[in-house]
């Protein structure tokens, strides 16, 4: 079967959505044709919409923006619905979502998963399941940790479930997980190993990150 892997990260380079797709790939590659797509600020071409519409499986990987789907990907979804109305495509196309969010708790991806499910209903796609992963910004630093080990234990289990559903094109309950890593340690590392070094790189002191450009005067 033909599986379209859509990386919906708006970043031009490496992305956490890309890390998740790379982890999924070996679990679903045998006997299947995997086709990668990138949806960022550059829109898809008409022939790419046609390819997606005729795929057997579509995996949408994207970061959570404001509890929902980021706007560039939402535009693609609306375009896809319009395309589908013109050309019916594969009637059994099944959609799976792989969502990562910047908070710790995976369940904060629930609303975005529901949006994807509602999109499937509008387009006449089957909704398979979603995996929502918390602490998404950690994924790039954990990319070399084997699935199912240490902080990637929960992700390993979730991707086993997801790949099983994809290979049988079945629907299962969505899973919302976080890394096997304490929340307080994650929160401290975000501040001291990520935001503060980023500020320093830009010549800013940590307290300058709290700047308030709106002074209260209109």
């Amino acid at each position, binding site marked *: 079967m033909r599986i379209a892997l859509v990386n919906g990260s708006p970043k031009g380079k490496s992305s956490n959505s890309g890390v998740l797709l790379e982890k999924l790939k070996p679990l679903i590659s045998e006997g299947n044709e995997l086709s990668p797509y990138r949806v960022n600020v550059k829109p898809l071409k008409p022939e790419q919409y046609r390819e997606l519409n005729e795929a057997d499986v579509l995996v949408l990987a994207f970061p959570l923006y404001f509890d929902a789907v980021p706007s560039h990907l939402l535009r693609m979804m609306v375009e896809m619905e319009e395309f589908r109305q013109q050309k019916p495509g594969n009637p059994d196309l099944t959609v799976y979502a792989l969502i990562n969010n910047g908070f710790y708790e995976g369940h904060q991806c629930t609303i975005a998963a529901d*949006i994807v499910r*509602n999109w499937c209903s509008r387009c006449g796609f089957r909704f398979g399941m979603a995996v929502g992963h*918390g602490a998404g910004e950690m994924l790039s630093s954990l990319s070399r940790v084997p699935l199912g080990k240490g902080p990637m234990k929960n992700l390993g289990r979730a991707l086993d479930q997801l790949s099983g559903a994809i290979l049988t094109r079945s629907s299962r309950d969505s899973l919302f997980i976080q890394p096997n890593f304490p929340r307080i340690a994650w929160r401290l590392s975000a501040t001291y190993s990520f935001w503060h070094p980023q500020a320093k790189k830009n010549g800013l002191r940590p307290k300058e990150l709290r700047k308030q450009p709106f002074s209260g005067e209109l």
Partner: protein
Amino acid sequence: MRLIVHDLAEQEYNTWLKGFSRDTDEVIGEEETIRHCVGCFGCWVRTPGTCVLKDSYTHMGERLAACEEFVLITRNVYGGYSPFVCNVMNRTLPYILPYFITRNGETHHQQRYERQFRFTVHFYGEGMTGAECGTAQALVKANALNLDASDYSVSFHDSVHSLKEVQ
């Protein structure tokens, strides 16, 4: 002051909703090209509080900080906002801080500003499903929590015309 973001064509807004907004309100429609947030975090670590993308929506963080009520008028798209309204929402990221707090047992962002606004969302569209309305309710509630709104309200309208009655 109310900050109103809508996805209607200019003529449609003028025809149906001119009375909706008052002289003191700031109204943002899709009149100019808007760029998508690219997740660069520049609004947090390069120019804190201001987006680094140069277009008419660079200062959404400040504009949100200046309002007493944040109003969205949006087509219900799969239980969320329409692409334009979603795009504007994504560009308000500089309104909040990169740091986290725990609220109701969940992680959320710390607020850059001490002030709060009311959050009001009007979804419109024919044939909205029960699932789409339920998702939309949950989305507004979650956004209100993340933006630390003082309170929020959600309403659904079969058409834009009916919005005239709720102004």
